[in-house]
C-alpha cells in the first residue's frame, strides 16, 4: 500500500549541531505537511509544501519538497534544546482527495 518512510527513526545531537530528517513516499504527492510533537504533547502543524522543488524557511528550519514530489526534508540549523521532539511528515497522495499518509516520525534529542 501507499506509505511514507521517514528516516532516521531517532537522532541524538549536541546543541548547536545541525539535524535533518527525510521523508520518502512510495507514491507521488500533491502536498506534504510537517508536524512537531513535543514529549508528552500533541502534534503541532509546522508547514505545508505544495510545489515541486519548493523550499520554505522558518527561522532555523528549512523545509524542502522534492522535484518529483515524492520526497521531502526538514533541516534544523544549530539545534537548541527547544527543538526536542518528534517530527512527522504527512503526505497527501496525488489524485486522492482528503487522504493523508503519516510517516512514523523522527525523534530528536538534543544534549545541552
Amino acid at each position, binding site marked *: 500500500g501507499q506509505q511514507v518512510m521517514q528516516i532516521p527513526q531517532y537522532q541524538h545531537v549536541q546543541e548547536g549541531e545541525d539535524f535533518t530528517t527525510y521523508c520518502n513516499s512510495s507514491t507521488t504527492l500533491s502536498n506534504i*505537511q510537517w508536524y512537531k510533537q513535543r514529549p508528552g504533547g*500533541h*502534534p*503541532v*502543524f509546522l508547514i*505545508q509544501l505544495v510545489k515541486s522543488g519548493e523550499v520554505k524557511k522558518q527561522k532555523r528550519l528549512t523545509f524542502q519538497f522534492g522535484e518529483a514530489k515524492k520526497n521531502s526534508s526538514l533541516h534544523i540549523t544549530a539545534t537548541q534544546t527547544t527543538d526536542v521532539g518528534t517530527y512527522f511528515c*504527512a503526505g497527501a497522495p496525488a489524485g486522492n482527495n*482528503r487522504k493523508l499518509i*503519516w*510517516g512514523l516520525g523522527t525523534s530528536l534529542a538534543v544534549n545541552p
Partner: protein
Amino acid sequence: DVKVTQSSRYLVKRTGEKVFLECVQDMDHENMFWYRQDPGLGLRLIYFSYDVKMKEKGDIPEGYSVSREKKERFSLILESASTNQTSMYLCASSLIGSYYEQYFGPGTRLTVT
C-alpha cells in the same frame, strides 16, 4: 488561537464497557478527525467528519463509531472496549479549505483492562 479540547486526559475502562471520548473545538472548523497514536505505528485515522452529521471511515474504523450533532463537537464511541483499543486518542480539526492543516487536542490516554 485554535483550541481543541478533549474531555479526559487519562481514562481507564474495563473490557466490554461502552466508552465515549469527547472533543470540542472553538474555531468554527468544518473538519474534525479522530486518530489513535501507538508506538511504532504512528498516527492512524479512525474517522473523519466534514460537516454536522456527516462522517467518513478512516483507515481503522473497526470497533469504533462517531457522532457529530453540533459543528464544534465530535465524539468517538467504543461500543465494547477491548484491550487492543488501549491507546492515545487524538482529536483534530481543520478548516474546510485547509484540510491538511490540522489542529490537535491534548489527547486522551485510554487504558482498557
